[in-house]
C-alpha cells in the first residue's frame, strides 16, 4: 500500500477504530477515553490532510483509491479534491470538537456511548467525503443516519426521544429513496463512479429522460433530508434536543454537510451537464432559493437559541445546494467553499450555545441581555461568526456569498441575486438582535462586571475551541486568496466540475 492509499484508508478507518476502542473501554475510564479520542482525532487530521495532499498531487484524474468488490459497483474509496475538502473540514473540526465535548460532557452520563457514536459519525462523514461511487456513499450515508440517532436522544428524556423519532421519520424514508435511486441509476447507466464533470453518458438524456429525472428526484429526496432542503427540513430543529457538541459538529457540519455534499456529488459528478439539459438542476436551484428564504423567515420567529441557529442552518445549507446547481464555475466554487465556510461559522455558534447554556443556563435569545459582558470571548466569537453568516466581510460567509452572487450572473440566473439580497437582510434580522442583546442591552446585575474575579468566563475546554473556530472562519475569509484556502481550493475544483 502506498502512503496515499494508507492515508485514504486511515482517514476513514481512524475514527471507526477510535469508536471501537472507546466502546471497549467502557463508561468509567474517562482519562483513557479522552486520550484515545484525542489521539484518534489527531491521527484522523493527519490522515485527512495527507489524503488532501495526495488528492492535490493526483488532481485532476490520478486520485489515489482503494476498494473491494461488492454488488455491481464495488465498495471503494477515493481521495479527490472535492472529497478531501469535506474530509479535512470534518476531521479538523472533529479534533476541536473533541476538546469541546470533553469539557461539555464532563458532568453528563453515558459518555462512552456518546463519544463512541460520535466517532462513528465522523468516520461516516469522512467516508462520505471519500467515497468513490454512489454505493459507497450510500453505505456511509446510512451509517451516519443511524449513528446520529443515539446522539440525538442522548439525554434520554421524552422530548429527546421525540426529537429522535422525528429525525428518523425524515431520515429513514430518505434512505429508502436514495437506495432506490442508486439501484435504478446503476441499472440504466451501469456502475456509476463519481467523475468531475459528470459520469453519465450524454446519450442517456435522449434514451431515458423520464427515468433520469425520476432518479434525480429520488436521489435528491434521499440526500435532501440531511441537506435540510424544504420541505425535508423539519427534523433539524427537532434534533436540537441533542447535546451541544452534537448540534455543533453533526448538525452544523458532518450530518448536514453530508447531505449537501451528496447533492454536490450527484449534481456535479454524476449528472453533470445532463442535469441542466434535463432541467432538473434548475428546479433544484429554485427549491434551494426558496429554502434560503423560508429558513431565514422561520429563524426570525425562534426564541430558542439553538432552534434559531437550526433554521439558519436550513437556510445556509441551501446556499451550497444553490451554488452547485447553478451553471457557472464561480457559483459552484461559491457553493463548495460555503461547505467549509459555513462549517466554521456555524460550529462556532453552536459551541456558543453549549458554552452559554452550561455556564449561565441561558437557552433563549431573550435571556441573552448583556451576555457580552459576562462571556466576552464567547460572544465575540459568536458575533464574528454571526456577521459572517449574514455575509459581512471579511468573515468567510461573505466570500462564498460573493462567489455565489457573481457566479449566478455568470450562470445567467439573475434571480439568485434577489434571493441573496433578501436572505442577507433576513440573516441580519435574526442574528443582529442577538448581538444587540448581548452587547447593547443592559445586563443582569450579576453579569455587569464580567465573570467572577480571577475566574475565566467558562470551561476553557469549551471557550478555546469556539474562539479557534471563529478565528478559522475569519481566516478563511480574510485569506481566501491564499492558494490553500477553501475558497481557492473550491475554485480549483469547480474549474474541473464545469468544463462544458
Amino acid at each position, binding site marked *: 500500500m502506498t502512503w496515499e492509499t494508507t492515508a485514504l484508508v486511515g482517514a476513514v478507518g481512524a475514527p471507526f477504530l477510535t469508536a471501537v476502542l472507546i*466502546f471497549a473501554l*467502557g*463508561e468509567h475510564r474517562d482519562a483513557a477515553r479522552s486520550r484515545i479520542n484525542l489521539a484518534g482525532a489527531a491521527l484522523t487530521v493527519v490522515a485527512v490532510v495527507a489524503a488532501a495532499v495526495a488528492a492535490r498531487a493526483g488532481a485532476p484524474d490520478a486520485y489515489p483509491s482503494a476498494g*473491494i*468488490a*461488492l*454488488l*455491481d459497483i464495488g*465498495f471503494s474509496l477515493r481521495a479527490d479534491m472535492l472529497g478531501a475538502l469535506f474530509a479535512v473540514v470534518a476531521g479538523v473540526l472533529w479534533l476541536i470538537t473533541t476538546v469541546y465535548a470533553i469539557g461539555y460532557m464532563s458532568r453528563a*452520563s*453515558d459518555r*462512552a*456511548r456518546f463519544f463512541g457514536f460520535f466517532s462513528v459519525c465522523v468516520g461516516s462523514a469522512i467516508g462520505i467525503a471519500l467515497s468513490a461511487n454512489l454505493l459507497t456513499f*450510500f*453505505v456511509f450515508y*446510512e*451509517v451516519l*443516519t*443511524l449513528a446520529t*440517532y*443515539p446522539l440525538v*436522544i*442522548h439525554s*434520554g*428524556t421524552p422530548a*429527546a*426521544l421525540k426529537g*429522535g*423519532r422525528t429525525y*428518523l421519520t425524515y431520515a*429513514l*424514508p430518505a*434512505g*429508502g*429513496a436514495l*437506495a*432506490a435511486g442508486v*439501484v*435504478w441509476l*446503476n*441499472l440504466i447507466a451501469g456502475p456509476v463512479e463519481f467523475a468531475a464533470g459528470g459520469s453519465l453518458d450524454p446519450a442517456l438524456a435522449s434514451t431515458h429522460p423520464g427515468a433520469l429525472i425520476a432518479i434525480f428526484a429520488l436521489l435528491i429526496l434521499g440526500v435532501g433530508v440531511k441537506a435540510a432542503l424544504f420541505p425535508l427540513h423539519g427534523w433539524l430543529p427537532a434534533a436540537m434536543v441533542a447535546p451541544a457538541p452534537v448540534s455543533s459538529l453533526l448538525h452544523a457540519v458532518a450530518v448536514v454537510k453530508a447531505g449537501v455534499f451528496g447533492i454536490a456529488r450527484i449534481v456535479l459528478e454524476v449528472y453533470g451537464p445532463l442535469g441542466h439539459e434535463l432541467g432538473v438542476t434548475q428546479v433544484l436551484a429554485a427549491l434551494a432559493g426558496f429554502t434560503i428564504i423560508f429558513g431565514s423567515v422561520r429563524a426570525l420567529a425562534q426564541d430558542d437559541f439553538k432552534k434559531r441557529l437550526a433554521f439558519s442552518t436550513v437556510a445556509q445549507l441551501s446556499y451550497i445546494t444553490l451554488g452547485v446547481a447553478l451553471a457557472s464555475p464561480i457559483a459552484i466554487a461559491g457553493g463548495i467553499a460555503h461547505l467549509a465556510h459555513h462549517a466554521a461559522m456555524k460550529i462556532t455558534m453552536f459551541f456558543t450555545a453549549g458554552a452559554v447554556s452550561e455556564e449561565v443556563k441561558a437557552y433563549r435569545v431573550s435571556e441573552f441581555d448583556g451576555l457580552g459582558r459576562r462571556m466576552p470571548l464567547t460572544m465575540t466569537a459568536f458575533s464574528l461568526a454571526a456577521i459572517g453568516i449574514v455575509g459581512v466581510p471579511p468573515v468567510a460567509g461573505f466570500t462564498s456569498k460573493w462567489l455565489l452572487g457573481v457566479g449566478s450572473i455568470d450562470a445567467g440566473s439573475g434571480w439568485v441575486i434577489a434571493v441573496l439580497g433578501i436572505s442577507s437582510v433576513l440573516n441580519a434580522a435574526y442574528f443582529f438582535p442577538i448581538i444587540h442583546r448581548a452587547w447593547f442591552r443592559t445586563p443582569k446585575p450579576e453579569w455587569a462586571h464580567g465573570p467572577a474575579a480571577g475566574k475565566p468566563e467558562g470551561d476553557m475546554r469549551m471557550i478555546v475551541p469556539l474562539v479557534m473556530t471563529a478565528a478559522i472562519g475569519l481566516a478563511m475569509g480574510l485569506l481566501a486568496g491564499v492558494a490553500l484556502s477553501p475558497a481557492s481550493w473550491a475554485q480549483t475544483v469547480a474549474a474541473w466540475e464545469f468544463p462544458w
Partner: protein
Amino acid sequence: MAEWIVRQLPALVILMPFTAAPLAYLLGAKFGRPIALVSALLSQPLALLLAIRVSRVGTLRYEVGGWGGPLGIDLVVDGVAAVMVLVTTVVGLFVTVYALGYFGDRERYRFFWPLWLFLWGSLLALFLSGDIFNLYVCLELVSMSAVALVGLTLSREALVAAMRYMLAAILGSLFYLLGVALIYGAFGSVDMQTLREVIRGDTTGQAALALMTVGLVLKTALFPLHFWLPPAHSNAPSPVSAVLSALVVKGSFYILVRLWVDVAQTAAFPGASTVLGVLGATAIFWGSIQALRQERLKMLVAYSTVAQIGYLFLMFPLVTGGGPAAADAWTGGVFHAVSHALAKSAMFLAAGTVLARFGHDRIEGLGGLSRRAPATAMTFGLAGVTMMGLPPSGGFVAKWQMIRASIESGQWWWAVVVVAGGLLAAAYVFKVLGPFFGREPEAMDEADLDPGPSPWTMEGAALALALGSLVLGVLGQPLLDLIMVSAPALVAGVTP
C-alpha cells in the same frame, strides 16, 4: 487422508452433529455441553471446506453408502446448499456457545443438547438432500426436534405453543407428502435432477406443486399461515427461538425455492408466484405492524420474523421471468435468508440475555438498557440494521438485489414494498432502541432483581452474530458469488 476428507465432506458435515447427538444424550448433561461445543467447533472447518470446494468445482454429488438412486440417498451440494450449510454451521456455533451460558448445567435442560445437535444435523441433511422424498423425511426430523425444543421448558405456554407448532408442522408435511406422491405418480421419480428433465407444467404437475407449496408455506409461516410462529418462537428458550427463526423456517423455504426455481422452473405457474409475492408483501406489512404493537421483546422479535419471511417470498414473482432480474432476485432472496439468519439469531439471543438477567422482557421496563447492558443493546441495534436493510449489512445487500430485480423486471411495485418494509422494520426496531437509549423506568424495582452482568459468552456470542450480519454487508461478495455457483438454470441464464 486429506483427499478422503474432501471426498467425504458432504457426509462428514452431516455426520458430525448426528454423531454428537446420541452421544450427548447417552452421556448426560455433564458431557452434553462439551460434546456440543466440540461438535460445533469441528463443524466449522468442514462447512467452510465444503463451501470452498463447491465454489471451486461446482456441484458435488455424494451417494450415501454407494447405493445411488432411485433407492439410495444422494446428497447434492450446489452453491446455495453450501451457503445454507455454512450459515447453519456458523449460527449453530454461536448459539451453542450462547447456550452454554444460558442453560448452564441445569438438569432440567439436559435434553437441549441432544435435541439441538439432532436439529442441526437434520437441517444440514435437508439442505443437502437430492430427492424430494428425502426432503420430506428431513423436514419431519427438523420439525420433531424443533417442537421438542420449544416445549423444553415444560411451562404451560411453551407446551401449548409447541402443540400448536407440531400440528401445523405435521399438517404441512402431509400436504408436502401428498404433493410428492402426485409427482412420483406423474413423473416416476423423486430425484430432483431427474425431475428437472421430465417435469411438465401439466395439471398434475402443477397440482402437486400447489399442494407442496401449501404445506411448505404453512411450515414457513407465511402470512396468513403464521398463526403458530409467534407463540412458538417467543415461548421457546431463547437459544431455541434463535435457531427456529434463523434456520428452521429457512429449511422449508429452502425446499420451496428448490422446487420452484430449480426443479419446476418454467413448469411453475406464474399465477401462483404472484400469489406468493402478494402474500409475502402482506406478511412484511402485517408482521411489522404486529411487531410494532408488541410489548414484549421476544414477541416483537417473533413478529419481526413473520415480516422478514415475507421478503423471501418476493423472490417468486421476480424470478419467474428469468434473465438478469431472476439472478438478482435469486441472490437477493438467498442472501436475505442468510443475513436474516445471523441477525435474527442475534436478536433472539440478545432478548434471551435480557430475559435471563432481568426476569422479564417488557420493553417499557427495559429503559436505559444501554447503560446496564451495553453489549446487549448494541447487539440489538446492529441486528436491527440488518432488519431495516440499511447498509452496511447483509439485509442491505439482499434488498439492493431485490430492488434491482424489481426494476429490472419492470415490477417496480415490489421495490416499493421492499423499501416500505424497511421503514416499518425501522419503526419496530426503534420502538425498542429508543427506550434502550432512554432513561431508566421510573419505578426501578427491576433493578433490585438485576443479578449483574450476564456471562460474557452470552453477550459475546450474540454480538458476534450481529456483527456478522453487518460484515456481510461489506464483505459479502464471495457469498454472493457462491450463491450463483451451479445456480438453477432459470437464474443462471442457461436454457435447460
